């Protein structure tokens, strides 16, 4: 079990972490016809927006309350009100998710109070679902903001079922922010193959999977609809993926009585065996032939690949749930975790087998990664990897210097199989060719015999 230590440095160098505010904004982007709104200065939105554009290579809907210095001091009610009115008029969304930032939190703007007052005077907003979430960027990290936004959507939108409905084929899935649109697509297929009907909150696979829409809208194109969110209570089960979603799953259970099952991860053989058994159990459908075949393919990939993974030392930096999914899987393939750095506290960290996990930055990673065989983190790890001469496997967010980040799949038997190939190929490509010096004895005997005789 790993010890979690907080870095003692005063200056954060090469940040790993991103803010809660944009984590929440991304969660809101998994809702259809949505507009996330950051209550802060325009830079808060602009930086987040550019980051998402670079990662997803898609147009990103995101607005700002454009707080000025004066507005910040006096309070942001008018800015929030104006922003909502303007967004309603210009973009006609079905949903606006409002995230706070550092300045609106320090000022203490009471968003829930604001909402009530705005609702009372603006009937034009009646048809728009509004959800606010507290996401100060001076505490927590991206995945905390994502989780908080999902919890708030459940609290504000999900209807409490009047009576216990008949057994439903509808299944709620609450994916953590480390699941890509590609992961969600894959997971949907798996669940559907058991005759179940999954709905995802949030559903980035509808909005940010990179597709060609029939028309161009200023809001999200695809994702879970507000109507679907309201009906989460009529599902028979909730599947939560990643420790970060536990809170949201519990909130949903309390509100609607829908029981939940949390999967810490869906990468690796055992993890997916659990998923299959669960789905088979709740659906009373035996595991389809397709997945028996895929399981067998994964086992074959593990056999073929383990030669290259065994004994390899890996330095990892990612948010807790992604870190834990990757670290546990790498260990299952025979790797050692030489260094692990993460952004925020989480029970998920306890399960990782390494000496210590640092709550820190990419400098902390770089200092601990020397001699490792592989670095696994987001694109910002590229400088450290280059300086250390260690290959980098990009994962998480942002990935701005590779194509296809939104379709990187690491869930399911098949996703795990392909991950073995991607990472294994990096190990293969960086294998060193032997030279006459490779087996030279160390120390005083390092001189070749012939040359010492010549002297």
């Amino acid at each position, binding site marked *: 079990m790993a010890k979690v230590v907080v870095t003692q440095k*005063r*200056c*954060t*160098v*090469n*940040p790993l*972490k*991103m*803010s809660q505010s*944009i984590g929440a904004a991304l969660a809101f982007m998994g809702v259809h016809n949505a507009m996330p*709104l950051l209550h*802060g*200065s*325009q*830079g*808060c939105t*602009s*930086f*987040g927006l550019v*980051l998402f*554009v*670079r990662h997803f*290579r*898609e*147009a990103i809907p995101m*607005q*700002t*309350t*454009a*707080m*000025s*210095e004066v*507005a*910040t*001091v006096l309070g942001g009610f008018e*800015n*929030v009100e*104006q922003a909502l*009115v*303007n*967004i309603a008029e*210009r973009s006609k969304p079905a949903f606006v998710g409002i995230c706070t930032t*550092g*300045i609106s939190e*320090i000022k203490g703007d009471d968003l829930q109070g604001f909402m009530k007052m705005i609702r009372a005077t603006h009937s034009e907003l009646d048809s728009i679902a509004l959800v606010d979430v507290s996401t*100060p*960027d*001076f*505490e927590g*990290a991206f995945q905390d903001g994502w989780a908080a936004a999902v919890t708030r959507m459940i609290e504000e939108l999900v209807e409490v079922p009047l009576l216990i409905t008949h057994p439903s084929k509808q299944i709620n899935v609450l994916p953590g922010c480390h699941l890509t649109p590609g992961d969600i697509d894959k997971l949907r297929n798996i669940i559907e193959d058991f005759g179940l009907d999954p709905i995802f909150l949030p559903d980035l696979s509808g909005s940010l999977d990179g597709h*060609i*829409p029939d*028309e*161009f*809208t*200023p809001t999200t194109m695809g994702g879970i609809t507000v109507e679907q969110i309201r009906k989460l209570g009529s599902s028979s089960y909730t599947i939560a993926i990643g420790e970060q979603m536990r809170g949201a799953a519990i909130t949903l259970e309390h509100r609607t009585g829908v029981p939940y099952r949390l999967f810490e991860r869906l990468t690796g053989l055992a993890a997916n065996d659990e998923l299959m058994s669960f789905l088979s159990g709740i659906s009373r459908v035996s595991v389809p032939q397709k997945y028996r075949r895929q399981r067998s393919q994964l086992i074959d990939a593990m056999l073929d690949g383990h030669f290259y993974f065994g004994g390899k030392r890996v330095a990892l930096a990612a948010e807790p749930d992604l870190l834990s999914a990757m670290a546990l899987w790498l260990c299952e393939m025979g790797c050692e975790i030489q260094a692990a750095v993460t952004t925020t506290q989480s029970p998920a960290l306890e399960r990782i087998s390494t000496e210590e996990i640092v709550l820190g*930055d990419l400098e902390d990673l770089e200092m601990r990664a020397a001699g490792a065989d592989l670095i696994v983190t987001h694109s*910002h790890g590229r*400088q450290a990897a280059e300086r250390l001469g260690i290959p980098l496997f990009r994962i998480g967010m942002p990935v*701005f210097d590779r194509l296809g980040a939104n379709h990187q799949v690491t869930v399911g038997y098949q996703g795990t199989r392909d991950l073995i190939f991607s990472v294994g190929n990096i190990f293969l490509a960086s294998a060193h060719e032997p030279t006459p010096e490779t087996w030279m004895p160390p120390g005083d005997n390092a001189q070749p015999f012939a040359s010492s005789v010549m002297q």
Partner: protein
Amino acid sequence: MGTLGSKIQQVLNEPGCATNQAKPSEERKKGCNKLLTPGAAAGGCAFDGAKIALQPITDVAHLIHGPIGCEGHSWDARGSKSSGPLLYRTSFTTAMNEQDIIFGGEKHLYQAIKEIVNKHNPPAVFVYQTCVPAMIGDDLEAVCKAAAKKCGKPVIPINVPGFAGSKNLGNKLAGEALLDYVIGTEEPEETTPYDINIIGEYNLLGEQWQIKPLLDELGIRILASISGDARYHQIACSHRARAAMMVCSKALINVARKMEERYGIPFFEGSFYGIGDTSDSLRKLARLLVERGAPAELLERTEALIEREEARAWREIAPYKKRLAGKRVLLFTGGVKSWSVVSALQEIGLIITGTSVKKSTPDDKVRIKELIRVDAHMYENLKPREMYQMLKEAKADIMLSGGRTQFVALKAKVPWLDINQERHHAYAGYVGMVQLIREVDKALSNPIWEQVRRIAPWESAKAENALQLHIA
């Protein structure tokens, strides 16, 4: 905040800015800091602008005092290139936490500066103030002063909380910080009659290196670039230049004008985008240097170089004429200066069918009309949805714009070329213009367009069936 407030007033009422001077005196004071509309704003904040202007200084440590949202989302994102030091690509931030909010972040900041100096010993530390510490009253100037004394090296306060205003304002405030704390604080090892400053050029994608060989050949030395591929020492010595060129945007006009005032360095506003503009700029540089005492033969050498390079550029562009003539271009770009590329595009026969004039002044509009020979549409405020519709209806063969409208074009399956700052190719100087034409050609002639526009077979079958049903 008082000092920041007066600084902002000062830079907004910029006498060197023709646009501002054309306004009535009351308007003038308001400057160009437009009030933002909540819910309908786009663009970066003052901090963003300051970082754009100063982060290209390669050998200093850039420390951002604020919570993670300010630096964590934006570091190592700009393509400013360095010919040497790489410290500017390392991100430093105090990543303020709740403790800092409650007790103040000054001590945290002070210790962070010390840590950086101990680890990297840079020639200077630039410290950027953001909204949260400004709000809780962290005294940036005082901390920097104390840290400078303790560390024995310059620690430069850059007071640019995002809520102060736009990116453009941030550019100017960054310039003020250079004027107040850096420029004129060191002396160059030697000076020559050919020393110039280039102001407002950031060496994005190494564009400065498309120009530098020309200057090298003429014997003109860039004493300081503010701030592309710059070293701290160069900027500290920049007051010894003989002439300056303010490149492209008016972002750092306050720096150019105040350096003229304080140190007598004459400047002109020029551009290295476009063949004609590059030649003009070289000419003006040579003339300014000669006026300030450089030997007159520089003018002749400059003319000879211009003639040779222009001929070479047109020779290299010529083969594209046949391929590109008659293609229709939608041009959506902010600054009027990007218009310098228009002449090159038109020269080879591309037709500008439409353009935006959202950010243009009345003067700009006249100029645009003069530039575009064919009758093109000028759009005041084209919404992405309308832009998409136009492209869908094939009213243009290619769109040239900035990253914000990239996906409008791509989703409409229309070739697109980035001509704003996030672009992937360098377009400066003569070689850059040839490169631009090459990129336009590459975009237009890519074989994917025909494939991606093809209707899926089942869709066309459906259409055919429907047609047959209709006939029946």
